[in-house]
């Protein structure tokens, strides 16, 4: 599983970070950082929740 963020769409709501702080972080510069680009399989439900609630639909999961 690979996390992909479309940074043209991302507007740093940080909702993904609220649901999956292990995977996403908005830093003080107000940009989003992916903490684990290829997280272990057991993180899939959290990654899917984060993708589902992203207000700009910027997060996708490959594989």
């Amino acid at each position: 599983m690979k996390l992909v963020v479309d940074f043209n769409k991302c507007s740093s709501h940080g909702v993904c970070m609220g649901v999956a702080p292990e995977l996403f972080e908005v830093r003080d510069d107000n940009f989003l950082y992916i903490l684990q680009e290829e997280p272990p399989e057991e993180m899939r439900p959290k990654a899917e929740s984060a993708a589902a609630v992203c207000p700009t639909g910027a997060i996708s999961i490959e594989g």
Partner: protein
Amino acid sequence: MRSITIVGASLAGLRSAETLRSDGFDGEITIIGAEDRLPYDRPPLSKAVLEGTRAPEETTLRDQEQFDAIGAKWQLGTKATFLDAANRRVHLDSGEQVSFDGLVIATGASPRHLPLTAELEGIHVLRTLDDCVAIGKELQASPRVVVIGAGFIGLEVASTCRKRGLEVTVIEALPKPLARVLGDEMGDACAGLHLDQGVDLRCGTGVERLEGTTRVEALVLGDGTRLEADLVVVGVGVSPATDWLEGSGIELNNGVVCDATCATNIPGVVAAGDVARWYNPRFGESMRLEHWTNAVEQGMAAARRLLVSDEEAEPFAPVPYFWSDQYSTKIQFVGRSAPGDDVRVAHGSVEDNQFVALYGRAGKLVGALSFSRPRQLMDFRRMVENNADFEDALKHAASL
């Protein structure tokens, strides 16, 4: 359950359909939509699309391939007119009837109109893509814009029009913008954003009447002021779209009444999104939310509810979240505010338009508001979720 009908083809309906499939439902799905369009994203309508930086068709929520992959029968451009609960059928304005085993009600809400808008041209509400395109067309003539109602839609329209260099007046009947959602003090912070950008903000006054022959020319306010206007956008709230459910036996009370699991009083009928009033056990109150994120989460929850037994059903207990982009400020709120909450600016400063304010009630943190501080806000989302003490939240804010 062999067939599921979803009434409402916007965000909540779409997420319901996708969840039914991802959870293994392989029966028939019918999706009925009043607008003749596949589901599209509404938040950009008052912002990027109206500003002209995003094309209307770029609001589609999925590409054609993804819509097709759902394997649903779409009946678009047709309205549900009645729910025959006994025979489990939805009546449509085309005269057709659609039978179902399970039903998701996701008809959303309709904008309220002013009683006095009569037949004048140049007066709009903003809910649909068609509304947005119609307003956008008028903006090209550089009109003097009057926005009635300083709620989120009205303020976003004001922000977008100012970005386009237009003259904007906002009229709000209450003493402050957004006071009902954010409280008085934070209403002032919001007002500040608009005053800084040259909006003529007039609070505490209503619209007495509109003048014009075929097209709006002016408004007369409650205090007698006469304002010339070329374009009026009305943003005075929405009402849940439940007309078609009158007399169906489904319980209504400013929305479709649901239990904590999104189930209505009729077995096999659930509701989600703007139209649903459900009991949120996390806050111990029945609520109806008109937020994007709720349409997503409740659409998913309601779909799951249809696929499980009463015993397996889980409560839908989200921490509400909404946002609004105005000028360069991102306003975000997590949790649930109420009049009388203890509101404290706990991080940053209101003058800089960069801060977090915390909302406390009975010693607990119930909500948090951020102006352009998304990172800090999300800490408080987790604290609301964990029912944190207000004092602990204030301490945490001080340590940021």
